[in-house]
């Protein structure tokens, strides 16, 4: 029996509103005190093609949907074809009886046909509103609070004008009316949770934008690309109010070079991109490392290679983040596991970039980038900003400033244009302490070593591996696989199998904090959303073991807990 924990999937054609309904449901759930995790699936085109949105609500904090769904709201035949199998026994299939006729041989589910489209057209004259109507039956099935739902609809649509708001409210009422005869799902004992405004509903891109704003980032230059565009979009709205700049550049190359310029001028700056754009930024990221300019780079990973499947997820840019770019140059690569962590990591990324003076790359994947989760309001008081060795006043009257002074920790004082007596040259050529171009052997060696010392120095600031659970069987993973792994671990626990989950959060410099545990484990499963085992290959550099058991997925879809559970069960 599931208690206050259920997954609903809403499916239809792209552009026909299923996503909006999913949004409403998610917002309702947050208001009712639920944690929410979502998973969108839609094609890389603007209209048409199958779209679906899965929303899970739960009392406990979650980062993944279930394998099985408890209700399937199917607005087209594709939804049925693709998702019926997912529907748990005891669950409900809701279909639009004005569009589809169904004959099914499953009698373990509730089948509910309601004439959404017909009603929407006849009563309101707007077909798309059928989506909101369908919230009525969900209210009934999961015993949701109609008052709170109306409030949610109200708050969501009031900005869009009286008519739209009223149509939606009316549609919901009609939906409730249509569902009157139906009974709730047996499997659920849905208590309304406590109304709770200490939680927020947001996607990873928004959490990152907020993290950046909180950290005082006042400059973003980016070029639109799925699934990273939201970051530029969000900051375009809010940075100007803070005296900042959000600018859509003519290309990713221009974007990253602009951001380097802004950083050089003393303003915290970032770029946000995905695979193809990340490739294009490679040369400039190397420049930032060489001239020692702080820079935060978001790469929201999508399914590659090349254009690949732009609206699908993958974890296949680990290699490029860690190893990309010619020459040897220090950089930092972080990878958060959920929306909430994306906020904190982004905030810290700016501190890290300022402290070690170089590029910090944040890797997310689509599951985090643009799927909403409910997060706890951020612990803003705990956040401390540090700008490292930024120097804004110089007493010495030397004609030139030692911008690249050789120091014990490798980190030099950094000044910015406008500072009296801080004058120096920054250059991507090898240089001496003042930034003069040089090719002298001893200076070259010292500078290379200095730059690499910085990385040692900041290891303490970076994110250690997170260890969950106990046991001699270990799962290693990064990023969004966290959600499904945690679910799988619970499933395994029920079977008596205890697992330990090691989630690596800093990929570069690799913190060897969990290597001992990996080496001494009985079995080590490596879960990753790619075909070639990029994470596994990184682990192999540091571990003694070679016998990792891969759990990989590269179809562009996120893991389900069952993918992991099954593989583990096969072996153990």
């Amino acid at each position: 029996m599931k208690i206050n924990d259920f997954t609903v999937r809403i499916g239809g054609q792209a552009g026909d509103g299923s996503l909006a309904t999913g949004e409403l449901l998610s917002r309702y759930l947050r208001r009712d005190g639920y944690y929410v995790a979502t998973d969108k699936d839609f094609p890389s085109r603007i209209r048409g093609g199958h779209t679906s949105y899965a929303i899970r609500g739960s009392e406990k904090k979650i980062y993944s949907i279930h394998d099985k769904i408890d209700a399937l709201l199917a607005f087209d035949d594709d939804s049925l074809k693709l998702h019926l199998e997912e529907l748990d026994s005891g669950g409900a299939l809701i279909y639009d009886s004005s569009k589809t006729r169904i004959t099914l041989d499953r009698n373990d589910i509730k089948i509910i046909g309601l004439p959404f489209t017909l009603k929407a057209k006849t009563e309101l004259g707007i077909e798309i509103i059928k989506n909101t109507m369908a919230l009525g039956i969900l209210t009934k099935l999961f015993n949701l609070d109609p008052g709170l739902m109306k409030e949610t609809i109200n708050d969501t649509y009031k900005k869009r004008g009286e008519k739209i708001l009223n149509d939606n409210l009316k549609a919901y009422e009609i939906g409730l009316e249509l569902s009157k005869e139906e009974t709730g799902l047996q499997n659920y004992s849905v208590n309304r949770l406590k109304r709770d405004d200490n939680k927020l509903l947001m996607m990873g891109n928004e959490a990152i934008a907020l993290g950046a704003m909180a950290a005082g980032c006042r400059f973003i230059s980016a070029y639109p690309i799925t699934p990273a565009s939201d970051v530029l979009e969000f900051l375009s709205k809010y940075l100007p109010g803070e005296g900042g700049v959000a600018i859509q550049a003519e290309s990713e190359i221009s974007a990253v070079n602009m951001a380097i310029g802004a950083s050089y001028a003393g303003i915290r700056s970032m770029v946000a991109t995905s695979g193809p754009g990340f490739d294009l930024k490679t040369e400039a990221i190397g420049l930032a490392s060489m001239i020692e300019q702080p820079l935060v780079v978001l790469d929201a990973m999508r399914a590659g290679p090349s254009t690949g499947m732009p609206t699908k997820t993958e974890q296949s840019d680990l290699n490029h983040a860690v190893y990309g770019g010619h020459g040897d140059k220090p950089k930092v690569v972080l990878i958060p596991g959920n929306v909430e962590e994306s906020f904190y990591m982004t905030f810290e990324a700016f501190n890290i970039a300022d402290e070690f003076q170089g590029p910090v790359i944040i890797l997310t994947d689509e599951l985090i980038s643009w799927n909403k989760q409910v997060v706890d309001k951020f612990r803003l008081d705990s956040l401390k900003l540090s700008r490292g060795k930024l120097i804004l006043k110089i007493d010495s009257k030397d004609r030139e400033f030692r911008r690249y002074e050789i120091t014990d920790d490798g980190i030099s004082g950094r000044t910015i244009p406008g500072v009296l007596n801080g004058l120096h040259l920054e250059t991507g050529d090898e240089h001496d302490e003042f930034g003069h171009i040089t090719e002298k052997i001893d200076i070259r060696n010292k500078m290379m070593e200095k730059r690499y010392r910085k990385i040692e120095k900041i290891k303490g600031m970076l994110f250690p591996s997170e260890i969950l659970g106990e046991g001699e069987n270990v799962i290693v993973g990064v990023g969004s696989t966290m959600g499904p792994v945690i679910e799988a671990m619970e499933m395994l626990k029920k079977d008596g199998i205890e697992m330990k989950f090691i989630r690596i959060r800093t990929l570069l410099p690799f913190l060897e904090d969990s290597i001992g545990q990996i080496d001494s484990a009985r079995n080590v499963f490596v879960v990753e959303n790619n075909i070639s085992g990029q994470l596994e290959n990184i682990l192999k550099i540091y571990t003694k073991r070679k016998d990792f058991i891969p759990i990989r997925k590269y179809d562009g879809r996120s893991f389900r807990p069952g993918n992991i559970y099954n593989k583990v069960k096969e072996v153990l």
Partner: protein
Amino acid sequence: MVEIKVDTKIYDKENPTWCPGCGDYGVLLALKRAAAILKLDPFKTVLVTGIGCSSKINSYFYSYGIHTIHGRAASVAQGIKLANPDLEVIVAGGDGDAFAIGTEHLVHMARRNPDIAYIVMDNQIYGLTKGQVSPTSEEGFVSITTPYGSFEKPVNGPLLALAAGATFIARGFAGDPISLTDIIVEGIKHRGFALIDVFSPCVTWNKINTYDWYKQHTYRLENHDPGDLKKAYEILSDEERFGLGIIYRKEKHTLEEKLPRKKAVNPFDPLQIQKSITELYEEFL
């Protein structure tokens, strides 16, 4: 034209390593003179360059400097100017930097109209990489990568910038650093994007476009009204004889002025930037 006597010494930095006779010496001199005339504060000035012989100029000019990567100086400069509009931002570099790998940035910089002057040191050749054809080399030009002569029409940089929306276009000659000084002074003073295309002979690799060649193929613009857009197109369309001077000038709002922000954040107040984001929470309820 009367030569103004100015003391350029305060702008001296390292000694140039350019080949003796290189046009870039003339550009450096003119830039120093212009800086002296304008009394540029070295601590509030940034000279941004790409990669090339010409792009080494900020090793030799006393101001803040950033020597970036090939073709990207324009973008870095825009980032600097947007971040701190109080800085005097000047870009300098080669024809390859500006009109080959950097074309895209030049075009978009021109349409944005930031208050930045861009000095192109155009020697119609790739100097630092040892004499390959450049986008401004003339058709038929023989170089190590065009042993049978270039088969491409050259890029007309100033014309391109004009078409892209630049609000100041000028052409100068490194062989006449005194006139060039005036052009650079005007370019820096211009509120908005200023493209200053300077013929700057490469004495080592380009044996065609020499000082003499330029003297023969250029003329000084007289009585030209830089406000006349049509005339500007006409002058720039001439591919035989090149007019020197200010070809086009029009005041328009700058990028910095057009940005939606009220006042730029102050980079000298680095810890005040941390911000409570609670007022934005509304979006997520």
